[in-house]
């Protein structure tokens, strides 16, 4: 075994979202460190992935041992303001279903948190947030 490639974990998580939101009805999705100028009165999703506090899992040093790698994917869902929350929650359901207690390529997703209504940033949208914590076992 080898140390985990966190970029592979990131890719696993992000590509799953990109594939889903590319299907009809397609919705633009923006990832970390990507510039995006949203079209007014449109719907779009921002995906922010972060790794967190990892820890020892098993005995052993640099070989034959395991670490627990944890992280969170924050998904901000933006829909036009002033037209209710239905369209936003419809997108949120697609996203929840995508990760809800699923194991993809060794990445275990917990039950999603949200969608929670939050203050829109950028302004001019109705925004909710879905957060999905995940866990990956690194086998050294």
């Amino acid at each position: 075994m080898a140390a985990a490639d966190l970029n592979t974990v990131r890719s696993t998580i992000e590509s799953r979202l990109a594939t889903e939101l590319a299907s009809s009805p397609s919705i633009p999705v923006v990832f970390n460190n990507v510039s995006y100028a949203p079209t007014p009165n449109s719907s779009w999703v921002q995906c922010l992935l972060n790794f967190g506090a990892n820890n020892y899992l098993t005995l052993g040093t640099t070989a034959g041992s395991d670490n627990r790698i944890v992280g969170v994917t924050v998904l901000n869902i933006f829909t036009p303001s002033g037209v209710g929350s239905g369209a936003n929650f419809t997108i949120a359901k697609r996203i929840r279903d995508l990760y809800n207690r699923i194991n993809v390529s060794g990445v275990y997703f917990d039950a999603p948190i949200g969608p929670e209504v939050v203050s829109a940033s950028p302004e001019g949208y109705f925004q909710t947030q879905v957060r999905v914590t995940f866990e990956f076992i690194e086998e050294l």
Partner: protein
Amino acid sequence: MAFYRGEQGNVLFKHDSADTLTVVTAVQSWSLSIEKDALDATVFGNEFRNPVGGLISGSGTIEVFYEKTAAGDGKGDLIREILTTPSTESTTASAELYTYDAGSQGSGSEKITFDILITSAEFNATVGELQVVTLGFETKGTIAIASVA
């Protein structure tokens, strides 16, 4: 002076004397408690109690993460050892608990060795957690603390 951290340890196990000691994978922790009976040898006229050492015994636990195993590999044998029936217990199992593994138990490693009787196995499945098996054991015969030359 060198101190050791928990992750520098290791566990080896073999089902019987015909096997070879094999590393048990994905061990979360081990513990060993060694006790010596204190026999009272105080005699009339003594003003202070005067115990002498009696029998020495050991017991402890090994916590492993459950994974698919087969009889014949270290963890597979360890998990299945609880099901060894008394009629076949003459095939003595043994274990080595490493406080320090210098690398594949090479020179400089520190270990505690003994024959072992697995006395309990608690399988645990909790939502959101990795499944853990906690194995309780008692030592059989001599317990030795040794360094790998």
